[in-house]
């Protein structure tokens, strides 16, 4: 795994960034976090439509899980209210837990699917949850792209 990261970083710095595609938010269901599943034309030659749509749909499901309003979130909210919300200083909220899951998923997707095709997904939390940024690299190297993941962007999502 370490070598895979190492290889991806080499790829990033030997490949040149050709373009960036931004997948915008889908607001048809209100203000919840959802991304459009429309396949961008720039990616047509790089990745299969079904893989891309799977990724976006899985991300949408994760976000829906984070923002789900149900028993657990009410419990969390009421408990927080009784402690004058001080509990947020000590406890990790459910949303943050899901965000961690999301970043692991994106890393895994980058390693397995996107980096071999010269693409890189940026975690939406690093872009203010506005877009999913997909960087398209033109591989200048002769040997094929190696897998790896994006350990690049910074965030702590708090």
């Amino acid at each position: 795994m370490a070598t895979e990261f190492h290889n991806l970083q080499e790829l990033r710095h030997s490949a040149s960034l050709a373009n960036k595609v931004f997948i915008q938010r889908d607001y048809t269901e209100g203000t919840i976090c959802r991304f459009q599943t429309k396949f961008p034309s720039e990616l047509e030659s790089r990745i299969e439509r079904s893989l891309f749509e799977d990724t976006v749909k899985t991300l949408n499901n994760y976000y829906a899980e984070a923002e789900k309003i149900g028993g657990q979130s009410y419990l969390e909210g009421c408990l927080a209210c009784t402690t004058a919300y001080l509990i947020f200083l000590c406890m990790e909220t459910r949303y943050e837990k899901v965000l961690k899951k999301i970043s692991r998923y994106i890393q895994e997707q980058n390693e397995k699917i996107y980096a071999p095709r010269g693409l890189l997904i940026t975690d939406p939390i690093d872009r203010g949850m506005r877009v999913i940024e997909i960087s398209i690299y033109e591989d200048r190297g002769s040997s094929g792209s190696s897998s790896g993941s994006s350990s690049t962007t910074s965030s702590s999502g708090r």
Partner: protein
Amino acid sequence: MKNCEYQQIDPQALPTPTPTPTPTPTPPSQPCPEKTKKQQRKWEIFPGKNRFYCDGRIIIARQSGVFPLTLGIILITSGLFFIFDCPFLVKHLTSGIPVIGGVLVVFVVISLLQTSFTDPGILPRATPEEAADIEKQIDNPGSSSSSSSYRPPPRTKEIVINQQVVKLKYCFTCKIFRPPRTSHCSLCDNCVERFDHHCPWVGNCVGKRNYRFFYCFIVSLSFLTAFIFGCVTTHLALRSQSGTGLVDALQDSPASAIELVVCFFSVWSILGLSGFHTYLVASNLTTNEDIKGSWSGKSGSEDTGNPYSHNSIFKNCCVVLCGPMPPSLIDRRGYVPEDSLPNATVEIQLPAAKNDVNVVGKVPSQGL
């Protein structure tokens, strides 16, 4: 916490590049200043008009308004209450009074501090590539050609939410299309999600992330002012009954007079505000939307209703007050990525990230 994950990855990822800095003697002069330059945290270069304390942990609007006054009035009035009224009331009534008062004061102060010092839901500004992409999308559909000389008319995008047409406006400062219910606060110069209003008393915007704290603050403050008002009135009444009249009672306990005046004027406004916000919470509206009359049926037709409401008072309250707490999007304490490096091919041999963050430009290409 997410930083910790990346810290685990990087040391594994960069064992090999670190020994290789030696073969390139020319750039060292370049990386040296960067190596010794302290890495900046993102809050230090934050473009909005905010102030940060405790190394980015605390955020407040630059114009803190009358926040110190608010805190001062609350603490002083409560202090006077505990010092001058409580002893009498404990003797004559019950010792539960300072306890209740104490709990209320603690609640009020904590929720006030949380409202003021929490990120209200600020949207970070668009990266240059994002902004360019949006511009491209706007200019493409054959809009007005001469856009260089004057500012083009406000750009809007229409979307449909719950069978209702909602217009998204383009924010020229942040260079994004504002999500629904987001508004740009001119005092803080930020787009804030679910923007309610900018409260000068609290010294911060009230938005998605701190609305529940704000609501908790005004509700507990109304209880506190009503409680103090009632106790002080009782105190003066008891004193004037057992003594020689109201005027003498006031002379005996002048602090009570001050508290009475403060509470009398506050209780109406705070109670009114609490009532208003309870109405907003129950209908899942924001002050901004209510004032602008966004959903109040301009044409009088049934179609213009609030598309965000769950059509149940209980559910609206639960969603607004007990919904999941969204994370802060501005990542105040993250480190600024070193994107200043010109392009990826230049082999600037910087040391491996002493912090977790961006390892761009640190790895030499090895014949890939």
